[in-house]
């Protein structure tokens, strides 16, 4: 079963990229990076994703078949909408801070903003981004009705999907036009925030 989870992660990792890359790419590019910072932030992002997977795996495993009745499409959509709204708000906050650092609101954000910590939160939220392979893994786990089993299954699933995120550790290697990349990524963070919050979150909930 663990091997199956690993294979599921490896085979469906491209779908995970579809769900996670739109958040991870602009967020990581918007910070100036050195090798050490890139490594720490990347690991924290991974740790966040792992935490998201393990929490969900444990809950699904513990609740077992009970959750099956709740995983109807309407609930999935509602959960996704909330996740999008939260991610959107966080992205808007960081986007505003990057692009309009002199605003009073932004100076307040800056005080509580620490990129490494936010990388962890983004990792956690992208881990819970409810993409199709994530639900496939969840469907297997709630059949098992066992927390430990659920955690192990999602751990293997995480390892399989993580292969596709390794390029995140190479962002510091981009030296040519790095300033322009950063400028563009900071605008993208804000645009993505508005898109997640309004278009995917609020408008879908209407």
């Amino acid at each position: 079963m663990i091997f199956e989870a690993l294979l599921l992660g490896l085979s469906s990792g491209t779908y995970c990229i579809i769900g996670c890359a739109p958040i991870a790419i602009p967020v990581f590019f918007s910070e100036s990076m050195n090798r050490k910072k890139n490594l720490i932030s990347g690991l924290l992002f991974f740790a966040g994703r792992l935490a998201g997977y393990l929490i969900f795996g444990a809950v699904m495993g513990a609740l077992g078949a009970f959750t099956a009745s709740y995983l109807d499409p309407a609930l999935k959509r509602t959960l996704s909408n909330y996740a999008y709204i939260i991610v959107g708000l966080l992205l808007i906050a960081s986007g505003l801070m990057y692009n309009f650092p002199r605003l009073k609101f932004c100076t307040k954000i800056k005080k509580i903003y620490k990129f490494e910590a936010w990388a962890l939160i983004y990792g956690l939220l992208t881990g819970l981004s409810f993409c199709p392979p994530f639900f496939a893994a969840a469907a297997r786990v709630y059949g098992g009705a066992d927390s430990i089993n659920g955690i192990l299954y999602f751990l293997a699933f995480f390892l399989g999907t993580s292969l596709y995120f390794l390029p995140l550790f190479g962002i510091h290697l981009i030296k040519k036009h790095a300033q322009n990349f950063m400028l563009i990524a900071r605008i993208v963070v804000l645009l993505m925030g508005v898109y997640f919050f309004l278009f995917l979150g609020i408008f879908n909930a209407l």
Partner: protein
Amino acid sequence: MQALSNLLKRDPRTKLSITSTVILTVLMALNVHFFHLGSSLQDKDIISTIAGWIMFLFLVTVFFLLLYTGNISKYRRIFFVASALLFFPAFIAGMYETFGHMYLTEENLIENTASYCHIVTPMVILPYVFTKTIIFPARIFSSAASIYGMLIIWLLATLVSGKGFCSWICFYGGWDDGISGIRKKPLLKIDPENKKIRYFGFAMLAFVVLASLITLTVMYCEWLCPFKLITEYTQVINLKSFIAFAIFVLTFFGLVVVLPLITKKRFQCLTFCPFGAFQSLLDKLSLYRVRIDTEKCTQCLRCISVCPTLALSKEIILGKKTKPHITCTKCGECFKACSQGAIGYAFAHFEKYKKNPFEKIISKLENHPTLIKKIVKKIVFTVKELLSPQSLFIFSSYTLGMIIMSAFARSTVHRTINLIVNGSFLFQ
């Protein structure tokens, strides 16, 4: 008389000789005949034939004037704006004739009957790589605006013109290009050094590509495209579609009309069009570039203020760099502004070969009798002109723009004459 003399006023820095102009115009006339006139001559409908002749004369005359006068920016703009203005009436009429209305219903989308628009190209690539599906609801083959047909033209245009697509070929770009050229001086000055404005288009590109990837829909078309207003608008049936419609109105009037008018900058193309930024990234593949001759340049900085896409800045000119920023659309506005003729078209890949073979031939002629020398010199000069990057770039970009125009321009002219004569813009 004064107007005619203005029309024919030649720019010594960029004009071609009459011999080269005539040769290239004859070649262009053959191209235009094939794409715009050929089928209409076989048509029994006299109005269709007249429409074909109008397009033929218009396109050949503008091309002749472009080369003869050397006023690249002026005649390119006439050609480019005409393309934009002739596109939407034919498109809307086609929508009414095919669907009975100017919007696409759910059924139309399921049947993949939308016309493929080149702007969505960067948005369909990644979803295709990951899911093996094309997320735009158009036919793969079997129509002029099919995915296959448009991608072939785009690929050709990218290899030849690169970012020049945005000033010579795109049938939307003529809107903000034309409007940005209306006023003589801007009401609102945009700082050419402003990097946020210059690179905003790239942020838009990254944003719409990533957003399309996460939703597997062409989100730019669904929510943002300013040209929805003049092509296939969204039918307002609920709050969501009302919001989308409001965004289309705002982006069209804001980015395509108001901002270009008051700033003289091509705001929609520069900051909002994801395809424009995509073409900038692919410009390295193209055969031609705009180059600055740093030896001729006197650093007067006049070129900086006229560039409609912030492709020239103090960093480039005072830093004695030979290449403009990647937002350069090869429109030729800076050629006109440069009194020294220091800016012009160049080949992208033959810069190393500085030795000009034509100069060598001319120098070898020194000992020949005067008449032979004169004739050979003239021939060599003409061949040199015909094979210059300026002639080749203009000829190929104009040809590609003209081919795109053939899909709709004659139809609009035909319909307009039909409206005047028979009182109907629609054929059915």
